């Protein structure tokens, strides 16, 4: 656990995204990077190294020329860091070693872009412009053997696309992070257990139940039964559109467990679709105590608890005091 705390953000991200050595190898295979490509790249290593500053300037000038490129450049420390990382990138790009260390570098730069809010289209355009400049240098070098120059450039381009793959993945992953966090909080919030009367609980379930949520429902229900000394629980599933066999079984297990704790569960509001799918799935419904709607369920629960509802004075017929 200790090294989990000491990890850099890039290492954490790489773990979250499942960047293992195998997946990195897979990425190389996808862009078709071969040993021959690595040899060709090695041949132009010194050539590229000689122009690092120039290429870095080209990339950032391109960004500076566009409004959408500004986010990375307005904050001085971010801009400095980005330049530094870009230099390191260009050096590493021709080192012919594209393992996990290289990926970690790419992740760090991608996170910086993503945090600064750099538009993906602008990044792609600037990167393309940078590659064009490298291409020009290479073609000049191979003036007399243009075919070889082209092949070399295409080998480098494979590395470039390998990089783009990583960067795009990170930017999309970061964008989806917000959605994932929202989903999590919806899940957490959506399992309230309410006490309606002494010894009577209401458990409304709304939305999609998956295995994870079903477990949360079980946990909070069984704990609430104990905490509120409940005898009857009304589980209302009016808001549940679909249910699969795994979740249905989980619900039945929860109801049986509640029974072991001395509480009766009444299920209300099973929609026609859910009811049909339960029957089709062949779920054992003998243990299920169902009532058509929530009102019926509450009446049944009150009956079980020995409550009698008696209509008293009709207060609504009196003039509301707030309006007088």
């Amino acid at each position, binding site marked *: 656990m200790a090294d989990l705390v000491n990890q850099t953000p890039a290492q954490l991200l790489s773990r979250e995204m499942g960047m293992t050595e195998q997946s990195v190898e897979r990425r190389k295979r996808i862009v078709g990077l071969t040993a021959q490509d690595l040899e060709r790249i090695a041949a132009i290593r010194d050539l590229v190294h000689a122009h690092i500053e120039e290429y870095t300037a080209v990339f950032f000038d391109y960004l500076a020329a566009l409004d959408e490129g500004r986010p990375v450049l307005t904050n001085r420390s971010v801009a400095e860091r980005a330049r530094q990382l870009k230099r390191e990138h260009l050096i590493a790009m021709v080192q012919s070693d594209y393992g996990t260390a290289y990926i970690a570098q790419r992740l760090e730069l991608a996170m910086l872009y993503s945090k600064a809010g750099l538009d993906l289209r602008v990044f792609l355009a600037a990167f393309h412009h940078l590659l064009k400049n490298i291409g020009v240098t290479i073609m000049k070098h191979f003036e007399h053997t243009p075919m070889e120059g082209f092949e070399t450039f295409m080998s480098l381009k494979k590395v470039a696309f390998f990089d783009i793959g990583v960067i795009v993945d990170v930017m999309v992953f970061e964008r989806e992070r917000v959605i994932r966090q929202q989903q999590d909080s919806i899940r957490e919030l959506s399992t309230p257990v309410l006490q309606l009367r002494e010894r009577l609980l209401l458990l409304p379930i709304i939305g999609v139940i998956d295995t994870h949520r079903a477990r949360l429902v*079980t*946990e909070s229900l*069984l*704990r609430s*039964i*104990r905490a509120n*000394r*409940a*005898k009857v629980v009304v589980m209302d599933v009016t808001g549940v559109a679909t249910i699969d066999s795994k979740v249905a079984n989980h619900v039945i*297990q*929860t109801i*049986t*467990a*509640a*029974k*072991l*704790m*001395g*509480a009766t569960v009444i299920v209300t509001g099973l929609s026609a679709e859910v009811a049909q799918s339960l029957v089709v799935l062949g779920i054992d419904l003998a243990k299920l105590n169902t009532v058509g709607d929530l009102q019926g369920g509450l009446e049944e629960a009150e009956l079980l608890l020995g409550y009698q509802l008696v209509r008293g004075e009709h207060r609504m017929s009196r003039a509301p005091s707030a309006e007088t």
Partner: protein
Amino acid sequence: MSVPILKQGDILIASIQAALSDRDLVDLRDELASRVGRLRSRGVVIDVTALDVLDSFATRTIRGIAYTAKLRGADAVVVGIQPDVAFAMVQLGLTLEGIPTALDLEEGLVLLRARKADRDHGK
């Protein structure tokens, strides 16, 4: 470790305080069976509040205790099954078929009294 058995009117209360070995459970079953006859008890409460595990042997023995008590003329009720224990039992497919359960000792006593009242009224 033996289980204390308390007499409360015509009801016997066996309160299990700590994890029991299989041997202890069998002893508890025999002891309860003999006391139900000797004290002419009409109800037995088995309190498992303190247990955080109920395995298949324990479940089967508790079921056995309840059936034995029933044959000797006393209703049995199991009380105080913890939330985690309840769910684990269901997942393992362990059931207390036909044996009433209640939240805690108080509820268990209420349930036994209600049963007695039903019986007294010839239901």
